[in-house]
């Protein structure tokens, strides 16, 4: 049975060079490289930035939609304050987290700046309107609740337009 030749038996070789990496070492390096690559954030591209913006719009629409429903519930006097306030607070927290996450993203190209310039104000307005809604609900101030509702509907419309242009 033929045995595979070791490197030292190959013609022209007198032995393995100490500087030459062995297969296990190469495998280990490859695994380490993969691990390091896995720990490193991927370089943002215009496409990934756009995907992130699309996800931000979807998530923000959800928080804003919750606020709009809460305004309608308050108008019909259909819920007790603890429920409405807690749900509004959760929606506000969610919107703030979504806005912060998008805000910390680096726009990779000049083209992405335009998208950022369009979405960031909508994020800020949504967060502020949800905060206004929470405050108004706590004070049971119907006029302020309706005002917050108007802002939320306007933001929702803006976000929906942006969502359409992104998809």
């Amino acid at each position: 049975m033929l045995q595979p030749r070791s490197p030292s038996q190959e013609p022209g070789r007198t032995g393995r060079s100490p500087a030459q990496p062995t297969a296990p070492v190469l495998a280990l390096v490859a695994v380490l490289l993969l691990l390091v690559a896995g720990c490193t954030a991927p370089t943002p591209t215009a496409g990934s930035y756009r995907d992130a913006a699309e996800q931000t719009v979807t998530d923000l629409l959800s928080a804003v939609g919750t606020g709009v429903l809460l305004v309608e519930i308050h108008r019909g006097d259909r819920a007790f304050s603890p429920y409405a306030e807690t749900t509004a607070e959760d929606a506000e927290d969610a919107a703030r987290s979504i806005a912060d996450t998008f805000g910390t993203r680096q726009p990779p190209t000049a083209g992405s700046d335009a998208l950022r310039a369009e979405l960031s104000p909508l994020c800020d307005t949504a967060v502020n309107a949800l905060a206004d809604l929470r405050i108004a609900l706590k004070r049971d101030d119907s006029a302020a609740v309706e005002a917050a509702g108007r802002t939320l509907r306007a933001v929702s419309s803006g976000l929906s337009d942006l969502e359409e242009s992104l998809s």
Partner: protein
Amino acid sequence: MRWLAAFTLGLLTAIGGFLDIGDLVANSVVGSRFGMTLAWVVPVGVVGLMVFTEMSARVVTATGRGTFDLVRERLGARVGLANLLASYLITLLTLSAQMGGIALALELASGIHYLLWVPVVGFLVWIVLWRLPFAYMEKTYGLLGLALVVFGVALWRMGPDLGALFTEAVSFSPPPNEGAAVWWYYAITLFGAAMTPYTVLFFSSGGVEEKWTSEDLATARLNVFFGLPLGGLLSLAIMGCAAVLLMPAGVQVSDLGQVALPVVSTLGRLGLIVVILGFFAATFGAALESGLAAGYGVAQYFGWHWGKTLPPASAPYFHLVIMVSLLSGTLFVLTGVDPITVTEYSLVFSAAALPLTYLPILVVANDRGYLGDQVNSRFTNILASVYLVLLCVVSVAAIPLMLYTKAGQ
């Protein structure tokens, strides 16, 4: 009265076990995002749960012994340990999620932050498990859990186009704006919610606690074949509510308050009271079940005395495991981790570990040495085998899909 008590056990399992924080969240999330396109997963999960729960009931009535007790004896210590570890860790995660759910329900009712409720919840669950008699516990939470029928009432009051909902339900494809990977990820989550391992463990051990004999098998089967589909129908009602009201509004559920929105919008303050009561009862009942299931599993594996009916002095290790599990769950939720996120992850990990729980039950249920002529019929074996293949596929796909979709984003 004995028949009524046994029937209530099935009802509690259906509401508290089938409908827990996992089902509330999963069905609402799915309905708000995918409409009724994943409705088919619910009957698939219910039938699977019925097959294996009926099997467990037969094992209990024929042998009078708990599932883990037999699994270890029949399959050996190693396989039993793998089964125990998988079930216990999933049950512990589920218990934490239920405790978080109770705290969230109390926050919705009181406005007090849920983290302040968590220690109170831990204490309440422990005191109920310690002091409240088994029969009284199951009746209380079984009946209170029926409050979740309010989702069915809300759906009816919304007057949806049932034909359109049905067409969506049988489309078997994701909505145009959603990818297939995310859709399948949520199908697995929903399947995991329907087939939570602790349900079967609690059902069979509860049967031992109630000293079922072969005469109780008919009642047990009635519980399984009536109670579990009832839970499934309520799941579909929750999904339908979210599909009809939340999806068109662009709301994708991420907290318990949003789950209640369709009921509150439709039925007002009375609906709110009933739905929060339902949330509390379902999550509290499930916390009791999963807390007990944790104790049952460990005690049965190690051969310790076990049983809620036994005082702590007679079953010290069983009660100790329950206490440690409750304490662990309390501390875990107190870290501030989002209970809804814990719920979603518990469902995925549960789905990944499903074969480890259900395969041993199938093996034991086919052993004539234990069950005599009560062993599985050919039909049951064919059905169970089909489900085992499905469970294995789900198990293999769950974690990769979670990573690929970034947990359903």
